């Protein structure tokens, strides 16, 4: 780095007053200290999750249903399945609308609605998850008194859309203009160029965006609180009026339970959730690395 170049006044040791030198080292020390403080909670949480989580996970965790409160043992197979179904449905919505929005912004920039779509998508990404839960509640459950899992998926999907839009837009813009021109010069219609040339070229970047959105959304509990509700039973129908279990809800309910025997499964659920989230993040990183 250029900062390692030796400066004349350093050689003689005259130019740099000891006060300046001391301040320089003091500040360097403070930055290191701040970084260590920032990393401490991360390490503490990891330690907490791994130590408690591994002790609490067993085969039952993945295969059994929750037992009545106060009883030990049991599992949350229903919550794992519920999370997969809800996040799966949300991903479908997030991917279709998100990629659509990204393509609109990147490929039809002359359209007069493009600035509005971009701005609103940006602003949408900042709206708290719990508010999206309220919206899904008033939109679906207050109207139809049913479709609980679906409402939860809708809320999560809304949260995913702006993330997918942004990454799609950014990777599509990385595809060189000449590629588009080459496609058009071959006589392909514009939609063919986008569908068969540009989207495949940008695939890994778009997958990264989708994975990031999935990892963001699969840990969300707030939008599920009054939509999916949670459940003690096998309830895998997202169009039912009965509550559906999900991992983040499981953690929340057990963490607030007055029975200490509820905690181990909260640890187990947390470890599973964090591993899932980190795996998706890692896959997302890996997908971009390869490019």
């Amino acid at each position, binding site marked *: 780095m250029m900062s390692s170049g030796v400066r004349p006044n350093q050689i003689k040791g005259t130019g740099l007053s000891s006060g300046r030198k001391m301040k320089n080292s003091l500040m360097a020390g403070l930055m290191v200290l701040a970084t260590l403080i920032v990393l401490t909670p991360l390490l503490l949480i990891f330690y907490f999750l791994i130590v408690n989580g591994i002790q609490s996970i067993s085969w039952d965790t993945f295969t059994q249903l929750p037992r009545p409160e106060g009883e030990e043992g049991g599992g949350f197979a229903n919550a794992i399945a519920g999370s997969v179904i809800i996040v799966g449905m949300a991903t479908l919505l997030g991917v279709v609308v998100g990629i659509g929005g990204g393509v609109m912004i990147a490929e039809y920039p002359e359209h007069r609605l493009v600035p509005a*779509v971009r701005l609103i998508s*940006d602003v949408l990404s900042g709206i708290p998850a719990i508010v999206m839960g309220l919206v899904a509640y008033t939109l679906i459950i207050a109207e139809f008194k049913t479709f609980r899992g679906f409402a939860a998926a809708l809320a999560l999907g809304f949260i995913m859309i702006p993330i997918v839009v942004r990454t799609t837009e950014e990777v599509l813009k990385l595809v060189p203009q000449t590629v588009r021109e080459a496609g058009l010069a071959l006589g392909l219609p514009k939609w063919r160029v986008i*569908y068969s040339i540009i989207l495949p070229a940008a695939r890994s970047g778009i997958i990264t965006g989708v994975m990031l959105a999935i990892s963001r959304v699969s840990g969300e509990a707030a939008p599920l609180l009054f939509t999916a509700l949670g459940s003690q039973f096998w309830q895998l129908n997202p169009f039912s009026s009965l509550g559906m279990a999900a991992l983040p809800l499981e953690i929340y309910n057990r963490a607030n339970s007055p029975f200490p025997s509820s905690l181990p499964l909260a640890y187990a659920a947390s470890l599973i959730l*964090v591993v899932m989230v980190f795996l998706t993040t890692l896959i997302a990183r890996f997908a971009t690395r390869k490019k």
Partner: protein
Amino acid sequence: MQNSRKVLSSRSDQYFKGLILLLGVAIIAIFGLSLYELLVGGWDALKTYGAGFLSNTIWDVPNEKFGALTFIVGTLITSVAALLISVLLAVPAAIFVTEYAPKWLSEPVSYLIELLAAIPSVIYGLWAIVTLVPLVQKLQLAIVMDPNLQKIPWLMSAPTGRGLFTAILVLSIMVIPYTASVARDVIRLVPADQREAAYALGATKWEVISMAILPYARAGIFGGVILSLGRALGETMAVTMVIGNNNAIPHGIFDATNTMASVIATQFQEATSDLQLSSLLGIGLLLFIISVIVNYLARLIIARLTPKGIK
């Protein structure tokens, strides 16, 4: 033949464009629909209480008197305090990663900081309940026992370990990665000329940072801070789990209170009257509007005041 193919391709182009526009417009529609639903849902409360909804601190469920001020105050205190703590740590950490750490160290460190953002909010809440709350409780007990500290009124609260202080601690940890990542990106964009010029004048590393880099990156960092504020305002689960859920304005830093998000999280499902439901939706509407404004401002600041290349 030639002609029909051309017509066909232009028609399929029209269909495709129509589909894409439909999806783009769907995003605008989602935004509009959300605003509309919250407005309709919260209308009863807004009509009944008018402007008093924002200025009233009473939240009386049995008598159906609802005001949001307590929660607005709770949200502001927790977010702003958490933001201050996180800036004090995140900006130096970002400077360390960009200016001090060698490459082999800087990449893993910034990756680790980003991992903080990937941990779900409920897990922060669980961790805080199990490890942080008992610690804060011990601290509170020590304060209550101390004859000198006893006299300070804003330190005195029921020693439950749950309240403003714990919520602020957790929230600041959660906000750090957002502030840090924007600060890091902005600092990286400071042109090398800027650094070299300062070094050429004989500046020490710290002088380069404080005189050449930070002034240049200041606006971008500020935008990042506002963006983090948006995050902190709406943060729900972890805050709900440790803030004590008490519907009263706090008088001390250990007092139990509620934020806008946490009162929705704890009361919406158990709301007993339509008016309570409507009031909670009204708070949701407020949260929606505030986040839109904060986010828009942050993006405006970042776009206006930083050199090209940052979004």
